[in-house]
């Protein structure tokens, strides 16, 4: 490994710095963390948060719909939604928000303006997916797939992807 001053890097072994816990405790803790019982208990803790998460996501969706041409706000809200939606059981909503974020991020990286119509299409789909009842989930999946294909084509046209 070369360094700017030519000095060799130092390697500090795990035994030479403070660890989270002792080795015997670490072994026990690892088993606990991987146990089905532990994961199920924690998933129940997540489930208890779902109503609050869904309410928050709907709030972000409203912000998103009002944001219109404020693309910074659109990205920020879509990013929050993609981070929370699947945990709240809104898988399609999260998937579409992720498609939108990736599109905006890629366009930003290649210094090209986003297509407002495509953004609006995604925002509309996010809103519908977030408010959809379970029966609409299959339709939401179809919409997400078509949006992903559309975004991929636009990115390809713009010279990315």
């Amino acid at each position, binding site marked *: 490994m070369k360094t700017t001053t030519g000095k060799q*890097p130092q390697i500090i072994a795990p035994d030479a710095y403070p660890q989270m816990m002792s080795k015997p405790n670490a072994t026990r803790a690892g088993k606990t963390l991987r146990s089905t019982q532990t994961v199920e208990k924690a998933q129940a803790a997540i489930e208890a948060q779902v109503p609050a998460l869904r309410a928050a996501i709907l709030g972000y969706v409203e912000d998103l719909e009002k944001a219109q041409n404020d693309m910074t706000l659109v990205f920020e809200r879509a990013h929050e939604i993609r981070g929370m939606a699947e945990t709240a059981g809104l898988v399609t909503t999260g998937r579409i928000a992720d498609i939108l974020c990736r599109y905006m991020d890629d366009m930003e990286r290649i210094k090209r303006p986003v297509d407002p119509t495509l953004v609006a299409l995604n925002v509309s789909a996010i809103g519908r997916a977030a408010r959809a009842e379970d029966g609409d989930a299959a339709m939401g999946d179809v919409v997400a797939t078509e949006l992903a294909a559309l975004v991929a084509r636009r990115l390809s046209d713009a010279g990315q992807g």
Partner: protein
Amino acid sequence: MTGAGFETLKALIVEDNAHMRTLLRALLNSIGIKEIAEAGNGQSGLILLRERKSDLVLSDLAMKPMDGLEFTRRVRTDEQSPNPFVPIIMITGHTEKYRVEAARDAGVTEFLAKPITAHNLFSRIAEIVERPRAFVRCDNYFGPDRRRHQLDDYAGPWRRKDDFQQEVDVR
């Protein structure tokens, strides 16, 4: 979840989304970690880290005024950092390759892509406690060894021309 050694641990959550902070707190509570401090951005996180001991940090990436990358760099390299070795798990929806690499180069210990599941978070924590990594100090980096997979029976060829083995006891 008693007896696994989590009860005495102190954690710090650095995340600008209050709902995510609540979720992460609930997950840590479920394994017995009760002493949890929360910060809304990297700047507040650094202050909390100086004020109280933390054994584990969960940090978001995108925050203002200080993001998770700068927070991590400061924890690792600031002269006043109370614990440059503290494990940092970066939890983010930004899963693009260049962002993952930026997090790695800032010195995060583990990277966790949202959506969060108990299994994913706990497997990262298990990795930290069961297989702690060596730290590397060089001119432009201080943090966990970025080459994660080292086989015990690996006899070369070395992956770098001037690869070396030098251990430094910092105690």
